[in-house]
């Protein structure tokens, strides 16, 4: 009988199952998602972090002697005492000391002697191998070449103070290993300075690579004298996949305890694990707030709809209960009749909800979560499940009570709430929403755990809007129903009368308004957060792709220009970051095509920024390796005429690797001649200046030389000569030596050089060019963030700011455009034109300078390969897409995914609710329509009236769009969109396309629900309906 009854009310039964499934499913999905999401966050954080953040490094407190064996014993003891042994894998021990090496040729070098567990089996030997002897060591092939040693050679080494010299025997030569191998824990540079000396010279000559030795070499005295500072360290890596949300906090506490314990015993443990887990747990807490609020909203909506559906179902079962009463069934049977069917349906729904929740979280885990994430139950799952079951039980009880009360044998029908109580409820809702609105706009939605009203603001606002919307539409329909009473528009009149007089369907549309509001809010939050994550990722990089290279900035420029001659996608940049200032030199002309410059970064557009930074007059002669030829007319006066043969024409060339050097172009001769010279190495280089140097010890200090330049050509390796005509103007040159004058002449530029100035510039350290190509202006225009601007205003002179330039010396910049923050270099940083900075450079490029190529969105996929082919050494490629992808899996991002999913389900719930109320009144509606049809109203008019009702309902649902947009406008700026802070200017522009899509979706939902219901109504329309009571069968 139960099954028959369920089948009889099939649609209502299905709706109960669906809504119960959604309510239970959501109650379970929330905690499941939170737990699995939290687990995913922890696992991802651990998996993507470097060794320093996950493993630990054990060393002796400085000043205390230590041995590798002692460290190993202490490590074992510490792990065992804290039950951490299972978390940590094999140990790698390292022993390292600095030393001086004297090559067989007698040259002194700085280097390092290192032992690391298993290193001899990691490196590949081109000759010999590791030996365990006390004086044995192996070297890299390039170090062997540099030092001129091979297997069997001996080298004298001493400590950095040249004390305790001993001889090491080279037993093997190895190829430089792959430093990206996990063996190096991703920090090879820190501990194993392979290649530290390549490319960039240091004042102190240094061997490229370290020496590798066995502990015996360190341990056996007197091979390594006590004066050597040997640093034994053990590094222990965290085992993969063991740390999750279940044990993260406990592990963090245990590690902190282990650190304290180690310190008490005279050891230090360096690990970033507690901080890493703390950051991750913070992310989780951000996620928790959003997910909890979204889940709660959905649960409440589902319960609301379930209550409505159950009450309607109870109405449909009134007849059964009446028959049972009629036949004298006892109260417990009546209760069973009233509650068994919905309870069974809810139970089925609950089972489906549990299964569905599990499936949803499993699918989410495979798409969103880190591989290896465990989906499991926790206390909150049971609490939430229990709470929803209790709520459903309460709703069942309510519906049963209502059914028992309303199913007397008389003609009573369920009493609806009085209009006064509805007004009180509506006014209360609006009042609460005003409080929520104020809370959201003052303290921010979801920004505080202590402000639940603000946290739930979007839902409460949507609820209030739904209340107001229903009231407005109800009022309008009533007015229209009076106005259209005698109208010829019968369909419209019927539709508005139906809604105005029986607004039950309209009132149920409240859930639809709320769902649409929440959906609009969710898609806005999701879309804005996604856009801001991308912005933050690109802003943190500066461009969609940034390639860190080694090449020297002139080679960098040349490579970039060869790869992208038209400046469409690549830009050279050099970053100099110190503790106090950050300077980014960019090729300003290419900035617009490449840089990520989100709206709000500066008041000016990126094109305006580019124009502001680009120097107006650029005088630049960059020479490749090749010959430089200068055609000049020389004349002398006074004593200078006598010493002309003792003077040479010189060119000052600058390259960022070795700095400035002088190229001899030949002895001066009176008359017009072409002087030529070739730099030995180091180019491409820039022509910095030109001048005359004495070749004799003494020259006359009176008289004057006139040097007229008529041609300046250089011949690159291709053999094609290129001229530099624009530079042969007086404006391009400036005097750099006292007394020297730059003068214009018809054929180019000329210099008057007094012999007094030339005579004073004598000796091996003579560096003074007579004239240099006009460099950058003394104060460079720059873009600076508010901190830089404040420094310039408060601490600088005339609004200027001194920052460390490319060569480490100060350059003066003036922030001409203020930015909220500048891409990549963050707070306190400035952007200036790279070319200007290079021309201001007088020494080799600062070691800390990072050479980069920024690749814009138009960059071809093989851009990095082309840069490599252009001669740049690629150190690192950073892609914003990777950053974005990483941010995609952070707590807030997962939370927004959940919110989006939840609100889509909310739309489904609302659709179910709408359909339920439409379908539940179907028989009554069909009866009314049959009655109308019998009185002569055409069926087409009746169909049209249904369509108009649907349209009114859909329009009402669109009020939700206003609610969602309003909530988003108020709440979005305070939503935690990123796991960590960003300097990037975030945008809260609402995604209009998505909102329109949601609105159309809502209209579609209403259309589908009403179309289905209308189909049922039209299918039922039969004159026999007029004979039977409408409340019995439906």
């Amino acid at each position, binding site marked *: *009988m139960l099954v028959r*009854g369920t089948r009889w009310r099939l649609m209502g039964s299905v709706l109960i199952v669906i809504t119960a499934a959604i309510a239970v499913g959501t109650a379970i999905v929330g905690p499941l998602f939170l737990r699995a999401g939290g687990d995913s966050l922890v696992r991802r954080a651990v998996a993507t972090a470097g060794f320093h953040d996950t493993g630990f490094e054990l060393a002796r407190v400085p000043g205390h002697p230590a041995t590798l064996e002692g460290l190993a014993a202490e490590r074992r003891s510490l792990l065992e005492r804290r039950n951490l042994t299972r978390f940590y894998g094999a140990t790698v021990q390292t022993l390292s000391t600095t030393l001086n090496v004297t090559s067989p040729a007698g040259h002194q070098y700085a280097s390092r002697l290192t032992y690391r567990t298993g290193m001899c089996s990691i490196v590949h030997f081109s000759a010999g191998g590791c030996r365990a002897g006390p004086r044995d060591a192996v070297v890299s092939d390039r170090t062997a070449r540099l030092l001129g040693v091979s297997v069997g050679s001996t080298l004298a080494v001493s400590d950095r103070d040249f004390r305790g010299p001993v001889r090491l025997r080279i037993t093997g030569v190895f190829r430089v290993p792959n430093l990206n191998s996990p063996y190096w824990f991703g920090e090879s540079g820190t501990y194993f300075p392979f290649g530290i000396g390549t490319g960039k010279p240091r004042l102190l000559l240094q061997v490229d690579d370290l020496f590798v030795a066995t502990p015996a070499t360190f341990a056996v005295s007197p091979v390594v004298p006590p004066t050597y500072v040997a640093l034994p360290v053990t590094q222990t890596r965290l085992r993969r996949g063991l740390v999750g949300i279940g044990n993260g906090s406990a592990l963090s506490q245990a590690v902190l305890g282990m650190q304290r314990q180690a310190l008490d015993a005279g050891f230090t443990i360096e690990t970033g694990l507690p901080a890493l887990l703390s950051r991750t747990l913070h992310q989780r807490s951000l996620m928790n707030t959003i997910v909890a609020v979204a889940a709660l909203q959905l649960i409440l909506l589902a319960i609301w709809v379930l209550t409505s559906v159950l009450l309607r179902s109870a109405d449909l079962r009134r007849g059964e209960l009446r*028959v049972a009463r*009629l*036949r*004298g069934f006892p109260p417990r049977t009546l209760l069973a009749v009233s509650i068994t069917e919905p309870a069974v349906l809810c139970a089925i729904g609950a089972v489906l909800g549990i299964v569905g929740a599990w499936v949803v979280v499993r699918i989410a885990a495979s798409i969103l979560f880190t591989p290896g994430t465990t989906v499991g139950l926790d206390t909150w799952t049971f609490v939430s499940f229990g709470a929803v079951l209790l709520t459903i039980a309460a709703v069942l009880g309510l519906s049963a009570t209502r059914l028992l009360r309303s199913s007397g044998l*008389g003609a009573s029908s369920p009493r609806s709430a009085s209009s006064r109580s509805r007004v009180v409820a509506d006014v209360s809702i609006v009042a609460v929403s005003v409080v929520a609105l104020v809370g959201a706009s003052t303290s921010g939605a979801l920004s505080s755990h202590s402000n639940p009203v603000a946290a739930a603001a979007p839902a409460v606002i949507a609820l209030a809007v739904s209340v107001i919307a229903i009231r407005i539409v109800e009022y309008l329909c009533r007015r229209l129903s009076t106005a259209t009473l005698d109208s010829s528009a019968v369909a419209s009149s019927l539709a508005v009368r139906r809604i105005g007089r029986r607004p039950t369907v309209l009132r149920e549309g409240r859930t639809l308004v709320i769902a649409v509001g929440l959906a609009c809010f969710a898609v806005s939050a999701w879309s804005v957060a996604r856009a801001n994550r991308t912005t933050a990722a690109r802003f943190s990089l500066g461009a969609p792709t940034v390639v860190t290279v080694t090449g020297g900035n002139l080679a960098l420029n040349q490579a970039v220009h060869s790869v992208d001659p038209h400046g469409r996608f690549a830009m050279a940049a050099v970053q100099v970051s110190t503790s106090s200032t950050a300077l980014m030199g960019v090729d300003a002309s290419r900035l617009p095509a490449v840089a990520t410059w989100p709206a709000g970064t500066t008041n000016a557009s990126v094109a305006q920024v580019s124009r502001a930074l680009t120097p107006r007059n650029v005088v630049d002669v960059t020479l490749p390796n090749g010959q430089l030829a200068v055609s000049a007319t020389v004349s002398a006066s006074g004593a200078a005429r006598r010493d002309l043969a003792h003077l040479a024409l010189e060119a000052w060339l600058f390259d960022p690797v070795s700095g400035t050097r002088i190229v001899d172009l030949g002895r001066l001769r009176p008359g017009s001649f072409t002087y030529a010279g070739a730099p030995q190495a180091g180019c491409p280089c820039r022509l910095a200046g030109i001048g005359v140097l004495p070749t004799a010890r003494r020259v006359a200090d009176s008289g004057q030389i006139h040097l007229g330049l008529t041609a300046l050509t250089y011949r690159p390796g291709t053999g094609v000569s290129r001229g530099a005509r624009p530079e042969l103007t007086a404006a391009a040159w400036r005097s750099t030596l006292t007394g020297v004058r730059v003068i214009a002449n018809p054929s180019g530029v000329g210099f008057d050089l007094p012999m007094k100035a030339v005579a004073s510039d004598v000796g091996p350290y003579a560096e003074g060019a007579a004239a240099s190509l006009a460099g950058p202006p003394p104060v460079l225009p720059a873009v600076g963030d508010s901190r830089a601007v404040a420094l310039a205003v408060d601490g600088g002179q005339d609004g200027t700011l001194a920052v460390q330039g490319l060569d480490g010396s100060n350059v003066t910049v003036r922030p001409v455009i203020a930015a909220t923050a500048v891409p990549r270099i963050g707070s306190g940083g400035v952007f200036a034109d790279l070319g200007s900075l290079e021309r201001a450079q007088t020494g080799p490029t600062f070691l800390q300078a990072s050479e980069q190529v920024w690749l814009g969105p138009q960059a071809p996929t093989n851009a990095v390969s082309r840069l490599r082919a252009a001669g740049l050494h690629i150190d690192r490629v950073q892609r914003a897409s990777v950053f974005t992808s990483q941010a995609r899996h952070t707590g807030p991002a997962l939370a927004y995914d959940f919110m989006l999913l939840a609100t889509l389900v909310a739309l489904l719930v609302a659709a179910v609710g709408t359909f339920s109320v439409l379908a539940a009144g179907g028989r009554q509606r069909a009866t009314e329509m049959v009655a109308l049809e019998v009185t002569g109203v055409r069926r087409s008019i009746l169909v049209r009236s249904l369509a108009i009702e649907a349209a009114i309902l859909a329009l009402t649902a669109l009020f939700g769009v206003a609610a969602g947009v309003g909530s988003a406008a108020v709440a979005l700026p305070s939503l935690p969109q990123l796991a960590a802070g960003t300097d990037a200017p975030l945008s809260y522009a609402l995604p209009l396309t998505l909102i329109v899509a949601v609105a159309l979706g809502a209209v579609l939902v209403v259309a589908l629900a009403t179309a289905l219901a209308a189909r049922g109504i039209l299918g039922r329309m039969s004159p026999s309906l007029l004979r039977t009571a409408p409340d*019995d069968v439906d």
Partner: protein
Amino acid sequence: MTSIDTLTSTETPRSAGADVVCAGLVHVYESEQGPVAALVNADLVVKAGEMLAIVGPSGSGKTTLMSLLSGLLRPTAGTVLIAGQDITQLDASSLNQMRATELSLLLQDPLRNLLPYATVSQNISFAARGARRRGWPLRWSTPELIERMGLAEFADRPVYQLSAGQQNRAAIASALATSPRLLLADEPTGQLDPHNRDMVIAALRDARELSGATVIVVTHDRAVSEALPRSLAIEKGAIGAEGRGTDRFAVVGGSGTIQLPPEILARYPSGTLLTVHLDDGRIVLRPRSGDPEEAGDA
């Protein structure tokens, strides 16, 4: 005149029904306008196995009387004895017990008495279940009842698929499923055409024949009342005329009141002063001299 044969009072039912005695029944409703007397000092005696129609216009109090007889309402004053048991004193459980066994109520609109999705057979079984649980001796099985009520052809069809007449017969069969001693039917022909009305009356007659139960039918349909052997007219909460076949009688009430037939009442409206005296075995009502209708005897 209906096509239904009227039962004569001399026919003896095969099984005794319940005596129904109402004495001094008063029922007052509370309405927004104040108390409304729905029944005023109503007396009623129905012998076991009798078929009685209670006739009256809307608002006359007949449905209230039916509700009092079925225990759905408790009277403001007076007693209702069914088979000698005063149901006004019964608690809810005992009333349930009574409804499951001795008393069967048939509501207007057959589908209100049936589970629409269940078959005729299931409906009858469902109705019998309550009586069976309470140990009430059922006098026939479901198939027997179906057979006797002429429903065999439709026994396995859901009742919502049946015609109105078939549904009515199924509802009556369902009401008989508990083997009641008193069958109360509220407007059983309310919305029916003459053909279906006749079918319902026939079914009620069959039911009475089959069960011997006392049958009380509330109706506003004169054809129904005329088809039943006895009818009581109820007007403004008071029981007035009684019909026996084609004969109509005024009924002397407990305090000596009688209700005038409508046509006399139309001539001598409320407030008319009459003299009453016996004249050779006749009761003579004469209006006071000088009154407009003085001209004739009633």
